[in-house]
C-alpha cells in the first residue's frame, strides 16, 4: 500500500449501522493476490481489523484525501456547480484511468483504492439528495469524504426497503401463477416450476 496508517484516537470514527454495509474502505487488492494488512497495529495482533479499515479511511480522507485531493468535486475534477452530466462524464473518465482492468499492473493496488474513492464520490454526487447534504457539509468546512458516508448508508437502507417491496410483489405474482396452475393437466414447464417451489420450500 502506498499510504501508511497512523494509529490514533480519531480512528474510532466510524461504525456501520447494524443492517447496512460499512463504508467502502479505500483499499482492495486488485491482483487477487495480496490483501491489505496492518503490520504495526498496537494491540491489534498484527491482523487485519475492522478498525484498520475505518482508521485507514479516516486517514485517507482527512490526511491524504481531503488535503491532497480535497472534496469529491476535486476528486472528480469538476466545479461545484457541475451538472449531473458533468459528474457522470467525469466519473467515467476517472474509471477509465483507475479501474484495475486498465491500470498499469504495478499501480493496480493504488489505483483500485482510488477507483473505490471515485466510485464513492460518484455515488454521493449522482444522487440529488445526497449531493445536497454533502454540499451543505462542504459549505460548513466539513469536506471529509467519510462524513457523507453515513447518509449513503441510510440511503442504501431506504433503497433496500424499496427493493424488498419489489421482491414481495414478485413473490406474490409467482405464488398466484402457481395456484392458478395447480389443478391437473399440467404442462411440463408448470410441473417443473411446481416441483421447484416445493423443493425450495421444503
Amino acid at each position, binding site marked *: 500500500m502506498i499510504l501508511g496508517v497512523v494509529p490514533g484516537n480519531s480512528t474510532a470514527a466510524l461504525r*456501520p449501522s447494524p443492517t447496512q*454495509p460499512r463504508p467502502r474502505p479505500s483499499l482492495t487488492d486488485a491482483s487477487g493476490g495480496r490483501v491489505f494488512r496492518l503490520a504495526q497495529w498496537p494491540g491489534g495482533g498484527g*491482523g487485519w*481489523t475492522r478498525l484498520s479499515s475505518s482508521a485507514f479511511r479516516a486517514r485517507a480522507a482527512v490526511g491524504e484525501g481531503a488535503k491532497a485531493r480535497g472534496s469529491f468535486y476535486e476528486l472528480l475534477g469538476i466545479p461545484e456547480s457541475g451538472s449531473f452530466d458533468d459528474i457522470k462524464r467525469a466519473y467515467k473518465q476517472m474509471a477509465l484511468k483507475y479501474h484495475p482492468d486498465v491500470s498499469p499492473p504495478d499501480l493496480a493496488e493504488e489505483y483500485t483504492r482510488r477507483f473505490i474513492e471515485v466510485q464513492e464520490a460518484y455515488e454521493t454526487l449522482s444522487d440529488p439528495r445526497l449531493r445536497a447534504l454533502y454540499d451543505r457539509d462542504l459549505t460548513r468546512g466539513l469536506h471529509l469524504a467519510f462524513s457523507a458516508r453515513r447518509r449513503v448508508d441510510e440511503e442504501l437502507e431506504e433503497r433496500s426497503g424499496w427493493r424488498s417491496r419489489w421482491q414481495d410483489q414478485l413473490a406474490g405474482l409467482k405464488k398466484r*401463477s402457481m395456484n392458478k396452475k395447480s389443478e391437473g393437466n399440467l404442462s411440463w414447464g408448470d410441473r417443473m416450476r411446481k416441483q421447484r417451489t416445493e423443493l425450495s420450500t421444503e
Partner: protein
Amino acid sequence: MPLWVPERSQVAPAACLSPSPEAPRALSLFSSSSFLPLPNSQCLVWRTDLLVISLFRMAEQPYTVASDSETTGDDKSQSAFHDLAIGIEVGTSKCSIAVWNGAQVELLRNTRKQKSMRSYVMFKDDTSSGEASSGGASNKTAYEEKEILSGSAIFNMKRLIGRADTDPIVHASKNLPFVVQTLGIGVKPFIAALVNNVWRSTTPEEVLAIFLVELKTMAEVQLKRLIRNVVLTIPVSFNRFQQIRVERACAMAGLHVLRLMPEPTAVALLYAQQQQQQQQQSLHGGMGSGCEKVALIFNMGAGYCDVATTATAGGVSQIKAMQGCTLGGEDILKNVLYHLLPNFDSLYSNRDTNKIRSMGLLRIAAQDAIHRLSTQSSVQINVDLGDGTKMQRVLHQSEFEEVNRNVFEICEKLIKLCLADSKLAAEDINDVILVGGCSRIPKIRSLVLGLCKKEKEYEGMDALEAAVTGAALEGAVASGITDPSGSLDMLTIQATPLSLGIRVHGGGFVPIIQRNTAIPVRKSTIFTTTQDGQTEALIVVYEGDGKMVEENHLMGYFKVTAIPLAPKGTAEISVCMDIDAANTLRVFAGAMMLGTDRANSPFFEVRMPTLDDAHGWCAQALVKTHGSALDLTTIPKELQPQKVQ
C-alpha cells in the same frame, strides 16, 4: 519443446492403471506445454493421447488440477500478444471463440468453417486407443445431430455444471438422451453416456474440460501460439459455486480464467466500443465522451436468460443492474415436445436404444419447427419416429406461444425487475439490444421492445456473436493490450448480480454486499453474540437474494474463536467481504476486544466458496449439530455504537 514426449503405449497404461505420482505431472506437462502450434498430424495424435489420459484421470480421482502456472511461466515470448486472453462463449447449445487480432475481434472457425460450434462431447469406444471422445470443435468427423442425440454424447453441460441432484434444473434434464439420475441427497447427479451399450459415468466438469481442450487445441493451431488465458462468458444467474466448477474445468484443460464475464456485460462492452467509435466519427476526435446512453440488454440462449442495463459514455460501460434465470430454448423445446407428445416421459422412461433414437428424431423435428416458426405463422411437422409411429401435424405460432406462455411471463418479470433495480423507466432507455438464439422468436422480440416502449431494436450487433466478441475485447483490455487508434480504450464496470451475506440467528440472511454493487468493493458489518459467554461463532456465508438462508446458495463456513466472555448481545464480531476486479470473494472475520476497536485475535481471511461437491445437506448438518450455540445476530439500531468524532 516438450520435455517429455511419450509414446502412446507408454503413457496410457501408466496413467490409467496406477494413479502414481508421476501421472498428474504428466497431465500437467501435457496440458500446458506440449501443444506445439504446428498444424501437423503429430499434434493431433498427442491430443488424442491427452484425452485418453485426462479421461482416465478424471474418472478415477477428484480433479487433478493441471498446474499451469509453474510450467509455462518461463517461456515468455517476445510477442506482445503472448499472454493475450482469448474470449470463449460456451453456450448450452453452441459455442464460439474469438480473439483480438491487433485491429479488431476475429471469430475463429473450426475445420468445417463454422464460427458457431455445437457444444457436446461424444464418447466412443475405440478398441485401438481405448476410450476417446470428441466434440463440436474437433477436427475429426462432425457428428450429425442424430448421433449427438443417440445417448453417446453429453451436451447441455452448461445447464448441469455445479448443480446438486436436488436442483430442479437437473431433474428437468432427465429426459435427455443420455442418463441423468438423481437421488435427492445433495450430491453430484449421476450422468452417463452410452458407450458400446454400456452407460459410462462422467461429470459436467469433465465434459466441459474435454470440450475446452479441443477448443484450445483448435485455437493454438490457428493462432500458432500457446493459449493460456481466457475470458469466459457465463450466465448472470451462475452462483459462485457454479463459477468455481467452470474455473476448475478450465484448469483441467490447462486454461487460466482471467475473467468470468456475465454474458450481457460482455455485450455491454461491445456496445461501449461501438458507441465510442460512432462518437469519434461524428465529433472527429473530440473528448470521445459525449452524452451518456442507456441500453437494456436482453440475452436468451438455449439454457439461460439474462437481462442487464448499462449506462455508457466515453467507452465506459457501467452496469446498472442485472437479472438472470435458468430459462431458454431448452425449456421452449421441452414445452413443445410435451405438447406434441403428452406422454413423452412414460414413452422413454426405459431408455431402450430404439426409443432414444425416436426421441432424438422428435427433438430434431421440434427444434426445426421452432426455428421455422420465427419466420412463418405455421409449420408442418412430418417425422417418422422409426418404430412404426409417424407424427404428422401442423403447429401454429399461436399454439406455440400458448404452450410457452410461462416462459414469456418469466422473461417479462426479469425485465421489469431489472428496470426497477436500476431505477430506470422505459423512457430512459436509448437502445434495446437483443442477443442470443431465442431473441429471434417474434413473441420475445415484441415483448422486450414493448416493455421498453421501443419501435425497433438496436442494430449493428450479431445476436449470436456479440457476447463472444465482447469477451475477446475484455480479454484484450484486461491483458493490458492498447490500441493506437483508441479502440481498446474502454471498460466495463461490473456489478455483483447476487447479494452476499451471512446467516444470522433464526436462519435469516443478512446481506453485507448488496446485489448490483459496483466491483471492486469491500464492505463490512458488525454482528453480536446470541448466547451469554459465547466464545465462538460460526460465519456461514450465502449468496442470493432470499430473506432466509435456505433460499440462497451456501458458499462456505468457518468459525470465529476468541470472542471475549460477555453477556449476549454485547460482544462485537466484525465480518468484512471483499471482491476484487477479478471477482474473487474473500471474507474476513474476527472478534473485537470489548469496548475497544481492536481485534481480540488475528482475523480469519477465507476465500469463498470453500465448499466442494456434496454440500447439499451441509447447512442442515450444521444446524443439527450445533443448534444455535454458535449463532450471530445483528446489533439493534439503538444500541449501535455512535460515531465518535
